[in-house]
């Protein structure tokens, strides 16, 4: 019945929103960033540790939470400039709806392109990550 929406709310997204793999505030981290969507009250905190370890605390919809988790997975062991490049590629996927073979699981969010008002949800964690990286540069 809900075939099309299940494209967006597919198993990987439901799984990661219900039981994220990279959630929780780490005991030690080098920088953190916040993302907030005033329209719906979604909030996400992203913690960055040198060496490419990222964790998140997401409070909001399934798309945002799953996106935060898939982001943390995708940026593992990456340098800040690689993370920034990934953000650009990811934003291209969620706005165009065209998958990018280099992005792996992040492509699960490509379906969000059909829901203009929800693209913000998918990109919010990346805004928080960018803020963390900026803070990391200043203090590091």
């Amino acid at each position, binding site marked *: *019945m*809900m075939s*099309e*929406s299940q494209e*967006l*709310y597919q198993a990987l997204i*439901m799984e990661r929103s*219900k039981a994220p793999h990279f959630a929780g505030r780490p005991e030690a981290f080098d920088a953190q960033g916040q993302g907030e969507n005033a*329209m*719906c*009250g*979604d909030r996400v905190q992203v913690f960055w540790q040198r060496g490419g370890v990222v964790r998140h605390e997401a*409070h*909001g*919809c*399934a*798309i945002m939470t799953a996106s935060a988790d898939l982001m943390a997975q995708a940026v593992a062991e990456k340098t800040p400039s690689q993370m920034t490049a990934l953000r650009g590629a990811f934003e291209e996927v969620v706005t165009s709806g065209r998958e990018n073979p280099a992005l792996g699981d992040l492509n699960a969010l490509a379906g969000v392109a059909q*829901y203009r*008002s*929800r693209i913000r*949800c998918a990109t919010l964690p990346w805004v928080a990550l960018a803020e963390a990286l900026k803070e990391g540069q200043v203090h590091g």
Partner: protein
Amino acid sequence: MSVREFNLDEIRKDFPILAQQVHGRKLVFLDSAASAQKPRAVIDAMVHVMEAQYANVHRGLHWMSERTSDAYEAARDKVAAFLNAQAREEIVFTRNATESINLVAYTHGRTALRPGDAVVVSEMEHHANLVPWQMLRDAHGVELRIAKITDSGEIDWESLEAQFADGKVKLLAITHMSNVLGSYTPAERLVAFAHARGAKVLLDGCQAIVHRAVDVQALDVDFYVFSGHKLYGPTGIGVLYAKRELLDAMPPFMAGGEMIESVSYQRTKWAQPPHRFEAGTPAIVETIGLGAAIDYVQALGFEAIAAHERALTEHGLKVLAGIEDLRVLGAAQDRGGVLSFTMPDAHAHDIATLLDRQGIAVRAGHHCAEPLMGRMGVTATARASFALYTTREEIDALGAGLLRIRQMFK
């Protein structure tokens, strides 16, 4: 008095958009509290103005302008009769309810209220009836007080008494029906209460006006505001009703053409109300459209509309109660067809997106009432709202959709 039988099948045919499909499915439009769909009569009236009878109003000496002015002013008569105002001059046309409230805050607020006076609003106001008073507070030194509501979404009279206790309150600005909880407020009692304590009352009638007959003289209310677009009329036209003596004392809100009697470089004499408050070329086509919308609902009659919507609301509450763990916000005794709800784990936006794929339009978010969200302990809700064209089957479709979503997120 209704002059037309309430036949839902026939009524739905009056609204061309209801035949549209969304994502290949029949449109189930449950977002009328945000803005209602328009009947053919409104669309036709607006097209007719532009095709057959259009010119600027109150300016031309030619035939077209005179006819258009007549049609425009006839809409004012319709609104005056609709609200049972004492005089047509008590009806000011604005862009929307938001502008109507701002008009009162800037004019009445800055002249009749003095620094140290207080304005009271409730915890369940739309931002449109909160932010203008905050701005008045900051610019003019009046105090802004918030009267509490109960958990069921009704006026907390003890709190209201306390806000008025020191005699400083000069204005109570309060909703007539919450756009989130669906609660009606007891307008007559509120007005009597405030008047007995020396305060004027502004009622935000955006939601209430759509569902029940409003008689401003019976209520004895000082200001009443609403928007045309929620009342099956067009966007761009709103109404401010105010008692004549209050309008007389109010300075203009905006300046320009139309609002003056005579202008020289030394001195400008303001026009009498309502034109004093209608600077510039008004929304001519939209105002005439609003007149047609009022004719439309009056032909059906609020008795029949309210009976239909009461049955829908009861059915809606029953359907929502049947969904495991779903929480409906508020439980006022006197409530209308605006139902806000949350589900554990499924965020309001997820609910709205998933329903949308089934052709069901609901609203999700804070509904321009962020402080109320905080009061009810949520950050966002999904909201289904009913109109005179809503059917039981549409509410059943909502219920079925929500059941599936519940299963997905469990």
